[in-house]
């Protein structure tokens, strides 16, 4: 079979289109920040998106499903997912940095199934960074300050007591 220039050109464009579409499929849904979601929620309503952040507070399992709240550093958003997706995950708080996760799912500007909450119905929850304990640093100056002030209170109380005794005499 003779390969003409025309056939080669068609093949080139077909393979290029295939490569672009494959790349899009491999990259997964677009990762969106909370700022983008809050500033224009209508743009993403009903679309499949990715959202990355730390799980904060509680992992609230409710039967076969669970709610988690994911904070990307600016704002937090509710994520509704299957309970099996949150098994073994840790939420962050004062003493602990929660799991940093990537959730992928459908974004709802006002979810009709959840009383109008802005949420993501996630099909997958992937841990990017595991949770870890947070350091609780206490400034040495704070200890010194506490001792100094305790001394000042004692002095004041002694002076008040002395004043009262002198008055009685």
């Amino acid at each position, binding site marked *: 079979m003779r390969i003409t220039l025309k056939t080669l050109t068609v093949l080139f464009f077909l393979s290029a289109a295939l490569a672009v579409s494959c790349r899009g499929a491999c990259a997964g849904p677009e990762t969106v920040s909370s700022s983008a979601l809050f500033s224009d929620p209508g743009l993403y309503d009903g679309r499949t998106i990715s959202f990355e952040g730390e799980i904060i507070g509680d992992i609230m399992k409710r039967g076969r499903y669970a709610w988690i709240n994911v904070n990307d550093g600016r704002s*937090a958003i509710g994520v509704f997912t299957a309970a099996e997706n949150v098994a073994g995950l840790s939420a962050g708080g004062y003493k602990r940095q929660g799991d940093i996760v990537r959730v992928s799912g459908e974004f709802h500007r006002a979810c009709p199934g959840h009383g109008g*909450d802005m949420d993501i119905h996630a099909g997958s929850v992937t841990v990017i960074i595991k949770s870890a304990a947070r350091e*609780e640093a206490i400034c040495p100056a704070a200890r010194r300050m506490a001792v100094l002030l305790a001394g000042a209170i004692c002095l004041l109380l002694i002076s008040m007591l002395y004043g009262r005794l002198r008055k009685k005499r």
Partner: protein
Amino acid sequence: MILRPRAEDIAIIGYHLSKIILGLGLTMLLPLGCSFLCGERGPFFDFLITIEIIFVSGLFMMQVCRAAYESGKKKAPAYEKSIASLDPNWMHGMIMVALSWLAAMILGAIPLWLSGHWISFLDACFESMSGFATTGLSLAQDLDHLSLTHNLWRHLTMFIGGQGIVVVALSFFVKGFSGAFRMYVGEARDERVLPNVINTARFIWGVSFTYLALGTAALWAVGMKNGMEPGRALFHGACIFMAAFDTGGFAPQSQNMLYYHNYGMEIITAVLMVLGAINFRLHYHLWTGNRRELLRNIEMRVLFISVMITFAVTAVGLKVGGSAYASGAPLLLRKGFYQLLSGHTGTGFMTVCAEQIGKEWSDLALVGMICAMALGGAVSSTTGGIKMLRIGIIAEAFVQDIKKVIFPSRAMVEQKFHHIKEVFLEDKTVRAALMVTLAYIILYGIGTLAGMLCGFGFIPSLFESTSAAANVGLSCGITSVGMPAALKVVYIFQMWAGRLEFIAVFTLAGFLLAAIKGK
């Protein structure tokens, strides 16, 4: 001629102020104990240092004021009594209240600032005043990693402020003197539930603690049912109760009520918000079995009508603006009505993001919300705003004036309304209601003007200003760490003046003027 205040006046005010400050220090033992139990070492030192600062300043102030009074007594033998047994007069009482709230703001801000979650002391003061005044606007950074101890304190400020800082002192630290009523009135509580003001203060605490137990238990149960661990559900239940009943609006997590994704929580908080918006005198009648009062009372009637009208405006606004919340009754109730009720009762709980209110709600919906926030709840409750009794009195006065025009000139037109008992409408009552209403409108205007000067639009500025001055706490996005410091100061002033309902603030201004210009 304006008379310059005497040194004795300052000594009396300072002496009683020091007692209130010491009382505030004692309330901080609760978060201190919490930090010890939870093993939060950093917050333990934050509160220990603050308590020590309070005791040093309180005891020092007490000593100085006592010494100043004693030296004055030697010069003027008219002062026979000791400073401790001396009753403050009206001026002393009002100034004491105004200064107590400022002192509470500064001292209450210290542990918050030490935590590092507030980027400046001004931000911590903003948070502290917002808590004590039961507003609920927050400038906390990384709230989701805040310690339980600091979070408890944030909510406790609302519980203390809701009942009244001076009411705390009257209930637990003051043996009882006639000046107590003057301080009680200064905190915008012009109605006594019981003949004795100390008993009234104790009744207020009795009601609050009973509801605290019931409300926390209900929220705890719902929290656990919704997948929270028992310990955390209890902590959240207690915090949310304090914020709901005291119509405060803080929540332990950054998403406020949206964090829970639960309608059970929303129903319980809606009930608590309404209970918080009811006059404590009405609570007394309900507790003593007089349930008919609930239907006959002018405040309850006006509140019902006002909620319905403002909700209708907000709902139409959401529909006209094409909001997704207007697509069905469940969404309209959980987003539109909940926000409206939260605003009207002065709570400020949110189940939507602040940005959503600012960007997605139409101007008409925002106007409905602004009206609800501006009107507020009942007098002698924990809410802010103009208040239902005043709106009712003004409406009755309008009816009376219309009757005077319609009826023959010789006819005697008497108008009465039911507020615990049948009350005849008098001109002085109408005048007082109109004066306070006018003062609130001016206060709303000051904040709006300040917001517009800082570059924000008219409706958002009016929304945020009304929210601050009526001690609501809903935000359309203006309140943030990045807002100008001047606007933060204006909002602090609004929260303070709005909570105290002006008289104490005006008295303090007059006192300062007399100190400068007096002879």
